[in-house]
């Protein structure tokens, strides 16, 4: 069945539906340039309500397996590809891509000129889009939802045992963050994003991790004082949205990139290691470099391509934050050492060292 992707810029792309479209779907349209990892992307809560375009033309080759989920369900509003494989060719395959998305009632639009679509997004910036069976575009609303609420856990849960106790504040965490901690011997308690500082104190954590999550960090302004209170008290690692919240909690500012960074090939300069790391990324918002002036942070990581802030360390306190995803999945695992550095700090109870 034919369907249409209407962009806020006025352009329309057509394609064929591989899963049913019961009613029109709208969301912010973004693209991912990694050549593998569609299962991780679809289930990454940071993509909540977004329409994801895969630039790699053949998606679904190895199907969907039981192991590579980043959360319990897919979060994207819709997926857009050139070709989707009807079957999955892999020993671990459980569903084909279309079967999986159909199960969750998520439209999969295929046979789209994704390259032209990506160029449109690149030039016009991330924007709202609507997938509908009608060739006539409707008036599009700006995003008004608060997606963190939709993806954050409602109750505390503990994983792993022994070792340092880490509290993972869940703004929409990827399973790989939890695994990166558990596999390093941590006991991890995942808590809802709006858990009160006192409740976290009661857990007696050795360290805090602020997770990734969807949307504009400023939607969480009301939480900033609590976050500030917490990160000043515990060794902290903040990832992606978490990193942006750390900056905001210290009075710095964030802004939206034109079309974000989403892929597995983003080069990031590490001023400590004095080399470039290839990182996995998924974000629209960044910390404004200028807004960090006069703040107690040193910029440790910088994006080679556009010079944007990719991570920082507090000059006195054990706070380390990264914009990219050291937990990978999808993408390169080169920056896994961030977890080791964090846990060393936790072990020493000292500051994160630049």
């Amino acid at each position: 069945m034919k369907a249409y992707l209407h962009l806020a810029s006025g352009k329309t792309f057509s394609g064929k539906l591989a899963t049913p479209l019961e009613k029109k779907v709208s969301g912010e349209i973004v693209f991912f340039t990694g050549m593998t990892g569609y299962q991780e992307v679809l289930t990454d809560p940071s993509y909540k309500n977004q329409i994801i375009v895969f630039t790699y033309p053949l998606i679904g080759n190895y199907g969907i397996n039981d192991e590579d989920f980043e959360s319990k369900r897919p979060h994207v509003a819709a997926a857009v590809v050139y070709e989707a494989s009807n079957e999955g060719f892999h020993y671990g395959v459980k569903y084909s891509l279309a079967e999986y998305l159909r199960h969750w009632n998520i439209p999969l639009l295929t046979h789209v000129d994704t390259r032209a679509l990506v160029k449109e997004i690149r030039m016009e910036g991330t924007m709202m889009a609507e997938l509908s069976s009608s060739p006539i575009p409707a008036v599009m609303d700006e995003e008004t939802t608060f997606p963190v609420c939709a993806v954050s856990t409602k109750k505390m849960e503990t994983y792993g045992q022994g070792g340092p106790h880490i509290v993972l504040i869940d703004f929409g965490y990827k399973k790989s963050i939890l695994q990166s901690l558990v596999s390093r011997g941590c006991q991890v308690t995942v808590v809802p994003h709006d858990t009160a500082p006192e409740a976290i104190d009661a857990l007696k954590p050795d360290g805090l991790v602020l997770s990734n999550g969807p949307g504009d960090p400023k939607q969480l302004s009301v939480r900033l004082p609590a976050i500030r209170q917490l990160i000043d008290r515990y060794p902290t690692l903040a990832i992606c949205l978490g990193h942006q919240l750390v900056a905001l909690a210290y009075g710095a500012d964030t802004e939206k990139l034109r079309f974000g960074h989403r892929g597995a090939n983003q080069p990031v300069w590490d001023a400590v290691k004095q080399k470039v790391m290839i990182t996995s990324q998924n974000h629209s918002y960044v910390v404004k470099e200028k807004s960090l002036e006069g703040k107690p942070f040193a910029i440790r990581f910088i994006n080679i391509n556009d010079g944007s802030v990719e991570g920082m360390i507090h000059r006195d306190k054990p706070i380390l934050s990264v914009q990219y995803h050291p937990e990978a999945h999808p993408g390169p695992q080169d920056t896994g050492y961030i977890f080791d550095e964090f846990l060393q700090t936790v072990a020493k109870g000292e500051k994160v060292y630049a």
Partner: protein
Amino acid sequence: MPKDSSLQSILLIGSGPIVIGQAAEFDYSGTQACIALKEEGYRVILVNNNPATIMTDDVHADAVYFEPLTVDAIEAIIAKERPDGLLATFGGQTGLNLAFQLYEAGVLEKYGVRLLGTPIEAIKRGEDREAFRALMHELGEPVPESEIVTNVKEAVAFAEQIGFPIIIRPAYTLGGTGGGIAENMKQFIALVEKGLAESPIRQCLIERSVAGFKEIEYEVMRDQSNTCITVCNMENVDPVGVHTGDSIVVAPSQTLTDEEYQMLRSSAVKIISALGIIGGCNIQFALDPNSKQYYLIEVNPRVSRSSALASKATGYPIARIAAKLAVGYTLAELINPVTKTTYASFEPALDYVVVKFPRLPFDKFPHADRKLGTQMKATGEVMAIDRNMERAFQKAVQSLEGKNNGLFLSELSAKTNDELKQLLVNKDDRRFFAILELLRRGVTVETIHEWTKIDRFFLCTFERLVALEKQAAAVTLDTIDETMFRFLKEKGASDAFLAETWSVTELEVRNKRKELGIVPSYKMVDTCAAEFHSETDYYYSAYFGEDERKQASGKEKVLIIGAGPIRIGQGIEFDYSSVHSVFALQKEGYETIMINNNPETVSTDFAIADRLYFEPLTLESVLDVIEAEQIQHVIVQFGGQTAINLVKGLEEAGVRLLGVTYDIIDQLEDRDRFYQLLEELDIPHVPGLMANDAEELVAKAAEIGYPVLLRPSYVIGGRGMFIIRSEAQLAALIEQGELTYPILIDAYLDGKEAEADIVTDGTDILLPTIIEHVEKAGVHSGDSYAWLPAQTLTEEERANIVDYARRIAKKLGFKGIMNIQYVIADGNVYVLEVNPRASRTVPIVSKTTGVPLAQIATKLLLGKSLVDIPGGKMSGLTVMPYVVLKYPVFSTYKLPGVDPTVGPEMKSTGEGISIAMTKEEAAYKAFYAYLQKKANANELYVIGDIDAELAAEIETKQLNIVTDVSFADWVKRDGALAVIDLRKEEGEAPKRMAALSQQLLVFTERETLDLFLQALTVGQLDVQPISGWIKKKKQAEQAVIA
């Protein structure tokens, strides 16, 4: 970190003559390195005895040495040039081995030459299996159980312990020469013996075979700050067991999850860091198709064939960047040359799929062993890009120029399913076509998977290709609707295939297609999946989506049609001419557009032509590009026979070609018309006739009188040519059924053979020098040794050669470049054939005479006259106060079953040149590397007999003639120097092949043997850059004028 300013001059070692396993890809990497170094202002000194390369042009290096690639020759060059640095990782295994030997011999230390880029310890760790294995154990990277052996006894003990199959890899060999997989003890012992003999250090790695695993490669780069990136990964369609050079390969990997992709990537990064490589590195893994278990199978600490492929597949110029890293830069400070807006420290993201097919030589050697294994057999490759897998495969097979018509290989249709199954089980080179044929016959994907272990993902793609054929067959040209037509084109059905399916002409299909508005769009290769703006005009066609070509410059456009995959008879020299034509056109202010499909070459470097189209060289694709670009001028003269074969179709489609018409080609190819032309011009020709069937052939051969030379028209490299000495022999050949009609029958003249490359404006010609073959007529020009200038022709003969060339050029009204072949017998000069295109010898003539033939020809094609071009007017032949010897280089020892005799069918894969003051010295240089390898050998084995005079001459060279010992034992003796077999009897072929397998020279022509004996009279090697020779030439010319 900025570049190293303590360096002034850098020596670069090239990979030498083209052999299987080391081909045009090293001209590409070497040229890129030269350009990168010159860009930084270094003085570049280059040693490479392969004249057909672009890197050996004086524009790319400051001093070019065509000298033997041996330690002492290079030491002499180092002593003369005193370079500050040495770059050894761009000349393939040859360059790497030489660097290692120079280091071991203390030459680098003696002259204070720094090895740039990857340090010697890293080369050692990567190449020495024992050291490498130890390092991998330390890193915890899994390698299959293995053992280094130096004798058969050790090997047998290992085999008894771990069982079969076992893989045998000789140390330090190119393209895995001498290796293989053994299924049982008998095969095993034979392979170990051979492997030990092949390895320069008499060492083999034997290891548990992981045949059947997925074979995955990563191209990794690292700089001195330890920043590591993977440019690309690639998945071999053929599971482990077939050499990656012979495998069908796709990029990026298709069947790996992100977890698997990253697991192997992390391992690759870990390995390149631990090795300490600076530059590029190729790492090959075997991955269990049913678990995450993987093994590391090979590391090449240098740029390679795979890195050339990865560069073209992604747009990321690995060699160019690697050269910059070697002189001190880091990835983060180098700009990505494709986008020009991002940096080199990133990993390309592809938004298309790439398919590489090997080009195997079995169309020329149908009787050779066609089984593919760990020893590479392909001479070249093609690459295809598309948005979907089906069309990428279709484009790749259309690019092969093999016997296949698209997905069909007609010889397979007569085979039974069982016979086809055998082709799969035996890993025959035709397996891809056999799989399609089996799928057509209803054999299931599951069954084929069992037989081949090829991943179902690929087999299902092939199944869809077969379904597509059926869908096409269900409609006709009249009934097809636009939707179905678009679908068929999107998935790669060619117009030619549809024409055949619908029993109409290709033009009818094309016209209907265009009526429906179905034309290809062109998409960009930009390294970044459109995430960033890109500056480079590197395109591929797709039948879906928008056309995204950038606005052209407004200059007049010229299309240069490339030569496609490297094969025997059509090698790298055509790429040389194509690239030079581009340079000339750019100088004249034209916009140059290149179309080609060979990922190994310089012509497909996006930085060469203004616009590059990576497309099959079929009429359809070429016309599509011409129409899309609205090209005014098309050049076919530099693309070998590939481009010439397109002339008729292009002309019929109304395309105007520069310099040549189909009528001219037909006059030269059609025997009757050709002889008529020569007779009109009063030029002697060899008596010849044409036969349309076997009966006519017998009658006309008798009419001409034996011996006769048979050949089909329009051939590359003398394919299907035979010298027939009697009617009985002819009858036997007809019986074999391998002749195709019409066939040309010429009297075979037992004379000298000569050839000339000329450029002409239609009235005048420029013929710099005559090339005289060492061997008599009947040996293919590609396989003969040859002198420049001619050494034994009389003044009158030379004058006739030039005069005949002039008459022909003038009469034809042809413009551009042509090659004419002559036989000189009984005091007469006969014209044998005229090829209206650049030939194999163009780069040799250009470099050793200083006359840039391809560039001049290009200017003539644009309408200039010879008198308008500086140096275009020359009275008589050029003065050469030195001699140049061109020598053929064979790879036949990698192709079991091929008889190393020379004849009208070309067998060599490459060539070298030597330049010296005397013929003897030139011969000495030509055989130098061989003689060094055989320094302790002094025995010549004679098959049949030789005359007393020759025997006496051999004795004067302190060589012993051996006839009466067991040949099988003798070939393995250290004293074995070469084999003489002047009778070339069929029955002695096994001996010749046995000698070949030990890499012994086999002399089947008296003249070649004489040359070899001449070489033995010299004992001194003198090295000289080409500029030194040209200076001597200029001095001699001035002396003549004065």
